[in-house]
C-alpha cells in the first residue's frame, strides 16, 4: 500500500476535530495552503501535486466547495507516468461533472490515451469518459471507443470498459451509435466468452433495445442463448459464479433486454426461453445464506417480470401468481416488498384480479407494517386491486390507516381513498361518509377537488341531501374541525339545512350560531362561503325570525367594509337582498343540479394508472391546473346566483336589477348604482323591442320579461302604449351603441322620420343637436320630444316645433352637463302623428359615461406612482370577467381607445396585459384621473381580469362596469333575464355559454399568468 503521509495527517486532523466549526477551520487552512502551493511553487513535485489533489477530493467529499485547483487535477491527466495520470483521472472524474468547461480542454489528451498503445492508459481514459463524458465526448470519441470494443487485439480488460463507455456516450447522444452498422457487431459481441465483457455488452444492449428493439432483433436469440448457457452452468468459470449462482447479474441483464422485445416469434427460441424460465420459477428455493437468497431472487423476480411481459401460458402465469402470493406473506422484508411491487405490476398487465383478491387480508397486514417502503407498496397494490366488491373494506382500511400514517404518506392516501370511494361507492351515503371522514382526519391533504365533488353529488341526488345535512351538522359538534370541513358543512347546511328543521338543534338560528362560532377560526376564502350560508339560512327561516335577522344583518354590516372584495361584495349584496322578500327567495333558491361530467379525480386516477409508481407529489402537480374543475362552472340558470366561486358580477347583477325599482339603495351602499328614477317609469314597459316588434300587438309578449337587463344600462327604450304601427328601420340598440362610440349618426329611423344626432363634448359639458327629418310627403304633426333625465345629468332640450313640414328637417340643440359618474342613460320620449297613425319611441340618448372622458396617455413614470397610490377597494376594484367576447389584443386596444380610455403601450411587462388611462370630467369630481389594467389569458380569450382605479369610489365602480359591458356585450341587443327555461337568444349570441371557458377557474389561471 502506498502511504501518503501528508494526506493521512490531514485526515487524522479532520477526524480529531471536536465539532463542525473546528473542521471548517482546518479545511479552510488546508485549502489556503493548497492554494498558495499551486500559486507559488512553479514546479511542484509530482508527489506533492498528487497529495494536494487527493486532499481536494477529500475536502470536496466532506461537502465543502472546492472552487480552485480543478486545472491542476485536470493537468495531471496528461502526466507521462502512471501514478500521476491515475490520480488525475480519478480526481477529475469525481470533482467535475459532465458540463464542466475544463473537461473540454482535456478531450484531446483523453483521446490520445484511448487510441494510444498503453493498455492501462486506455483503461483510465475509458473509465473517465464512461463516468462523466458528455455530448462533446460522444461526438468526438464514439468511433474510437467502438473500435476498441470490437477489436480482436484488445484484452477483455479494455473491452469491457469500452462497452460501458460506449453506453454512456449513447445515453448522451443516441447518434453516437450508427444503428445500421452496429446491430451485427452487437450480435457478434453477445457470442463473447469472457463474462466480464459479456456483462458490459449486455448492459449496452439493454440501452440500445430500449431505444429501438427492431434494429437489434437479431440479438434476441443470443440473449436466450446466454440465459441457457448460464442456466445450464456451461462454460462459466468458477470466479463468475456468485454464491453458487452463475453470474446473477448477467442473467438479470439478459432477461431485462428481452423485455424490450414485444414478443418472441420464433417457436424454438420461445421454447428454449420458457424452459429456462420454468427452471428459474420452480428451482429457486429460500436458503439460509442471505446473499445467495438475494442473488437467486434477483434472478427470480426478473424472470417473473419477463413471464408477465411475454404473457405466457395460463399455467405459468398462475405459477407466478402463486409465487407472488407466497412472497407477500413471508417475513423477510425485501422479498415481501418485491412481492407487493410485482403483484401491482402484474395487475396492470393481466387479468388476475380475482386471484389477487384472495390475498387481500395479507396485503392489508402489510399496510400496517413498520416499514414505510412496504406500506407504500401495499397501498399501491390495494389501490390497484380495488373494485366494487371490496371497495368498502379497502377504503375503510385506508381511512383507519390515515390516522396513524406519517405525513409523507397522508396526501397520497387521502387522494387514493377519495378516488376509490368515488369510483366504487356501493351507495352514495357511504361515499359522503368517506369524504367527510377524510376531511376530518386529514383535512390538510384533502384538495378542493374532493370536497367540490361531494357537493356536486349531494346537489344532484335529492335522497342524499337530508343525510348529508345531518352528517355535516354532526361534525360541527366537534370541538376543533378542519377549515375544509367548515366549508363543506357550511355549504351543505346552507342548501339543505332546512331539511333538518324539525330535528333538535337544527333550526335556522341554531345552525347559524354553530356555524358562526367557526367564523373567527377560518381564513379569508372561507368567509364568503359562510356569508352565503347565512343568507340562505335567513331565507329558509320560516316564519321569519327577527332575532336571526338581526344577528345575520349585523354580520353583513360588519363585513360591508371588508378589505377583501369578495367578502365585501357578498356582505353588501346579501344585506340588500335580504330585505327584498320574494326577490330574496328567488335569488337564493336552491342550486340547480350540476350537469353530469366525469370526475376530475377519476380523470386523474386514469393518468395515475399509467404510471403506477408516481409519487403523490407528482400526482398533485398534475391536479393543480384543474383544481377548480368540479364546481366552478355553474350553469347560468334562470337568474339564480351560481353557487360558490361565482364570478362576482353575477350576484351583483341581480342585486342591481332588484334594487333599482325602489331606488333606495344608493345611500346605503357606496358601490351600488345611483338610484334610477326612470326605472319606475320604464320598468313596466319592459324590454327594448327587437327590430320590427314595435307594434303594440307584438310587444306584449316580449314585455313579460320581468327585470330589465342591467348590462345594457337601466334605461329601456320600448315603444309606448300608443297605437303605432310602423316598421323601424335598422336596429335601435345597435344605433345607440354605435353612437356611444362616435359623435354623429342616425339615432332612429322609420318610413317617415329620421332622427340624426351630432355631438360635441368638452369636459363635463356636451352639446348635442338633434336633426329631425321628415321623409314623407305629408307633414308630421303633434311632434313631441321630451327628455327624461337621469339624476346625474342636467339636460336642456330646446323646444321642438309641433309640426315638421314634408321633406323638411328641423334642428333641436340639447345641452348636457354631467354632475357625477353614473352609467344611467337619458331617454328621449319622442312621438308624432302622420295622418291617423300615432308613432312613438323612447330613445336612449348617447350621453353616456365615456363621453365625459378625455383621452390621456401616461408614461411609466406618471402611471405607476398613481397606480400604487390607489391602494385598493373602494378606489381600486378588481374583477374577473368571463364570457368576454373574444378579441385579439390589438382589437381590444382599439376598442378601449374608441371609448376614450387610452391604451398606454409598453407599460405592462406582460404582453398579454393592457394598461390604460383617461380623465373623467363631472361637476362634482372635476377632472379625475382613471387608470385601468386588463390582464388577458392568451389561452382563453373569453375571460380576463380587470382592475380599475380612480380617486372616487363611485367613478371607479361605474367605469369598471362600463368597461365590462363593452367587453361582454355585442353592440346590440337586449338581454332579457327570462325566468323559466326560455333561452335568452340575443344573450346567447352576446355571451356564448362556453362550458370549456368556464370550466377552469380564471382566477387561478390568471394568477398563474401573473
Amino acid at each position: 500500500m502506498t502511504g501518503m503521509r501528508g494526506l493521512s495527517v490531514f485526515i487524522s486532523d479532520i477526524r480529531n476535530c471536536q465539532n463542525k466549526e473546528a473542521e471548517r477551520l482546518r479545511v479552510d487552512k488546508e485549502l489556503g495552503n493548497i492554494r498558495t502551493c499551486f500559486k507559488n511553487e512553479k514546479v511542484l513535485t509530482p508527489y506533492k501535486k498528487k497529495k494536494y489533489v487527493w486532499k481536494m477530493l477529500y475536502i470536496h467529499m466532506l461537502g465543502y466547495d472546492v472552487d480552485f485547483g480543478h486545472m491542476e487535477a485536470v493537468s495531471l491527466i496528461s502526466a507521462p507516468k502512471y501514478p500521476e495520470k491515475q490520480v488525475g483521472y480519478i480526481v477529475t472524474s469525481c470533482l467535475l461533472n459532465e458540463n464542466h468547461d475544463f473537461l473540454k480542454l482535456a478531450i484531446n489528451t483523453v483521446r490520445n490515451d484511448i487510441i494510444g498503445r498503453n493498455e492501462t492508459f486506455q483503461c483510465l481514459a475509458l473509465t473517465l469518459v464512461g463516468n462523466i463524458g458528455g455530448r462533446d465526448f460522444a461526438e468526438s470519441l464514439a468511433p474510437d471507443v467502438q473500435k476498441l470494443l470490437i477489436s480482436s487485439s484488445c484484452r477483455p480488460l479494455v473491452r469491457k470498459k469500452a462497452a460501458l463507455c460506449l453506453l454512456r456516450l449513447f445515453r448522451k447522444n443516441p447518434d453516437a451509435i450508427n444503428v445500421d452498422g452496429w446491430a451485427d457487431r452487437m450480435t457478434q459481441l453477445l457470442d463473447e466468452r469472457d463474462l466480464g465483457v459479456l456483462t458490459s455488452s449486455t448492459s449496452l444492449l439493454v440501452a440500445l433495445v430500449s431505444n429501438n428493439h427492431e434494429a437489434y432483433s437479431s440479438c434476441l436469440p443470443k440473449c436466450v442463448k446466454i440465459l441457457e448457457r448460464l442456466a445450464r452452468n456451461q462454460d462459466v468459470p468458477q470466479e463468475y459464479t456468485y454464491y453458487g449462482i452463475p453470474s446473477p447479474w448477467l442473467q438479470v441483464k439478459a432477461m431485462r433486454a428481452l423485455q424490450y422485445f414485444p414478443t418472441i416469434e420464433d417457436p424454438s427460441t420461445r421454447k428454449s426461453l420458457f424452459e429456462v424460465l420454468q427452471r428459474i420459477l420452480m428451482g429457486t428455493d429460500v436458503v439460509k445464506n442471505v446473499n445467495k437468497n438475494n442473488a437467486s431472487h434477483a434472478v427470480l423476480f426478473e424472470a417473473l417480470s419477463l413471464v408477465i411481459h411475454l404473457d405466457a401460458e395460463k399455467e405459468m402465469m398462475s405459477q407466478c401468481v402463486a409465487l407472488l402470493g407466497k412472497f407477500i406473506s413471508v417475513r423477510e422484508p425485501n422479498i415481501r416488498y418485491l412481492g407487493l411491487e410485482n403483484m401491482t405490476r402484474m395487475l396492470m398487465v393481466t387479468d388476475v384480479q380475482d386471484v389477487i383478491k384472495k390475498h387481500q387480508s395479507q396485503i392489508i397486514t402489510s399496510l400496517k407494517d413498520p416499514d414505510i417502503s412496504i406500506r407504500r407498496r401495499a397501498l399501491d397494490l390495494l389501490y390497484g386491486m380495488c373494485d366494487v366488491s371490496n371497495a368498502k373494506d379497502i377504503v375503510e382500511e385506508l381511512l383507519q390507516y390515515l390516522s396513524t400514517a406519517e405525513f409523507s404518506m397522508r396526501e397520497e392516501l387521502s387522494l387514493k381513498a377519495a378516488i376509490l370511494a368515488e369510483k366504487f361507492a356501493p351507495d352514495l351515503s357511504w361515499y359522503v361518509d368517506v369524504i367527510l371522514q377524510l376531511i376530518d382526519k386529514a383535512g390538510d391533504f384533502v384538495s378542493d377537488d374532493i370536497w367540490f365533488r361531494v357537493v356536486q353529488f349531494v346537489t344532484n341526488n335529492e335522497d342524499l341531501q337530508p343525510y348529508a345535512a345531518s352528517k355535516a351538522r354532526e361534525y360541527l359538534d366537534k370541538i376543533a374541525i378542519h377549515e375544509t370541513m367548515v366549508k363543506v358543512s357550511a355549504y351543505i347546511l346552507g342548501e339543505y339545512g332546512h331539511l333538518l328543521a324539525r330535528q333538535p338543534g337544527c333550526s335556522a338560528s341554531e345552525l347559524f350560531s354553530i356555524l358562526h362560532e367557526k367564523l373567527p377560526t377560518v381564513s379569508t376564502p372561507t368567509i364568503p362561503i359562510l356569508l352565503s350560508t347565512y343568507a340562505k339560512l335567513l331565507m329558509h327561516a320560516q316564519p321569519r325570525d327577527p332575532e336571526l335577522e338581526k344577528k345575520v344583518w349585523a354580520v353583513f354590516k360588519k363585513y360591508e367594509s371588508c378589505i377583501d372584495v369578495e367578502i365585501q361584495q357578498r356582505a353588501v349584496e346579501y344585506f340588500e337582498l335580504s330585505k327584498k322578500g320574494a326577490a330574496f327567495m328567488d335569488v337564493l333558491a336552491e342550486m340547480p343540479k350540476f350537469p353530469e361530467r366525469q370526475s376530475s379525480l377519476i380523470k386523474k386516477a386514469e393518468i395515475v394508472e399509467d404510471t403506477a409508481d408516481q409519487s403523490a407529489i407528482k400526482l398533485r402537480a398534475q391536479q393543480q391546473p384543474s383544481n377548480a374543475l368540479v364546481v366552478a362552472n355553474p350553469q347560468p340558470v334562470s337568474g339564480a346566483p351560481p353557487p360558490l366561486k361565482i364570478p362576482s358580477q353575477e350576484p351583483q347583477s341581480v342585486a342591481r336589477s332588484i334594487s333599482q325599482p325602489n331606488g333606495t339603495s344608493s345611500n346605503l351602499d357606496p358601490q351600488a348604482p345611483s338610484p334610477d328614477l326612470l326605472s319606475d317609469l320604464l320598468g313596466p314597459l319592459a324590454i327594448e323591442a327587437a327590430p320590427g316588434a314595435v307594434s303594440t300587438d307584438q310587444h306584449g309578449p316580449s314585455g313579460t320579461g320581468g327585470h330589465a337587463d342591467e348590462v345594457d344600462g337601466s334605461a329601456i327604450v320600448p315603444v309606448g302604449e300608443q297605437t303605432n304601427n310602423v316598421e323601424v328601420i335598422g336596429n335601435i340598440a345597435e344605433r345607440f351603441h354605435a353612437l356611444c362610440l362616435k359623435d354623429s349618426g342616425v339615432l332612429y329611423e322609420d318610413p317617415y322620420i329620421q332622427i340624426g344626432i351630432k355631438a360635441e363634448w368638452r369636459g363635463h359639458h356636451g352639446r348635442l343637436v338633434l336633426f329631425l327629418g321628415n321623409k314623407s310627403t305629408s307633414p308630421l304633426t303633434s311632434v313631441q320630444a321630451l327628455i327624461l333625465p337621469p339624476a346625474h345629468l342636467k339636460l336642456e332640450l330646446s323646444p321642438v316645433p309641433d309640426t315638421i313640414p314634408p321633406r323638411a328637417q328641423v334642428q333641436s340643440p340639447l345641452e348636457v352637463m354631467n354632475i357625477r359618474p353614473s352609467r344611467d342613460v337619458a331617454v328621449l320620449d319622442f312621438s308624432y302623428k302622420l295622418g291617423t297613425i300615432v308613432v312613438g319611441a323612447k330613445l336612449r340618448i348617447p350621453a353616456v359615461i365615456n363621453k365625459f372622458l378625455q383621452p390621456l396617455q401616461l408614461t411609466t413614470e406618471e402611471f405607476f406612482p398613481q397606480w400604487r397610490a390607489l391602494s385598493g377597494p373602494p378606489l381600486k376594484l378588481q374583477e374577473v370577467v368571463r364570457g368576454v367576447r373574444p378579441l385579439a389584443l390589438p382589437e381590444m386596444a382599439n376598442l378601449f381607445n374608441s371609448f376614450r380610455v387610452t391604451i398606454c403601450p409598453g407599460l405592462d411587462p406582460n404582453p398579454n396585459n393592457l394598461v390604460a388611462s383617461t380623465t373623467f370630467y363631472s361637476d362634482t369630481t372635476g377632472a379625475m384621473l382613471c387608470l385601468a389594467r386588463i390582464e388577458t389569458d392568451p389561452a382563453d380569450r373569453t375571460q380576463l381580469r380587470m382592475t380599475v382605479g380612480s380617486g372616487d369610489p363611485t367613478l371607479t365602480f361605474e367605469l369598471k362596469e362600463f368597461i365590462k359591458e363593452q367587453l361582454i356585450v355585442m353592440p346590440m341587443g337586449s338581454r332579457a333575464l327570462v325566468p323559466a327555461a326560455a333561452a335568452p337568444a340575443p344573450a346567447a349570441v352576446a355571451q356564448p355559454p362556453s362550458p370549456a371557458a368556464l370550466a377552469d377557474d380564471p382566477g387561478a389561471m390568471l394568477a398563474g399568468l401573473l
Partner: protein
Amino acid sequence: MIHFVLLVSRQGKVRLTKWYSPYTQKERSKVIRELSGVILNRGPKLCNFVEWRGYKVVYKRYASLYFCMCIDAEDNELEVLEIIHHYVEILDRYFGSVCELDLIFNFHKAYYILDELLIAGELQESSKKTVARIISAQDQMVEAAKEEAGSISNIIAQATK
C-alpha cells in the same frame, strides 16, 4: 442504472461519493443530507429499499457504514443489493477484513476499486478475482514508479555528494 453511490457512516459522515449522473455541488450536498436523514433513521429489520424522489435507494449497513446506491424505480433492487455486497467483499479481500478506518485513510483506494466495478452506473466486472488482479497490477505500477524515482534520486544524490 446506478445514479450515484454513497458511503456514509452511522454518524452521518460521508466516506465516499461517486456520481454517475450530473449533479451540481449544491445538489450533491442536498441529496446527501436528505438521504442520510432518511436512511440512518431506519430501523434495523426493515427492507433494504427506500423510495425517494421517484427513484429507489438500495442500501445496506455493514458495521458502522451504510452503503447506498440510487437506481431507477424500475431497476432490479436485489441485483443492486448484491452489487453492494460484491463491492464490500472486494474491499474486504483487498484490505483484509476491512473496517471503516481503512476506508477513511485509504479512500482513494476505495475509489480505484469502485472504478473497476462500476462504469457509467453499470456493473463492469462480476469476478472478484479479476478485480483483485487489476488492482494489484495498478499497485505494482505505482510502486515500480516510486522505486524508479527513488533510484534516480539516489543516483543524483550520490553524484552530487
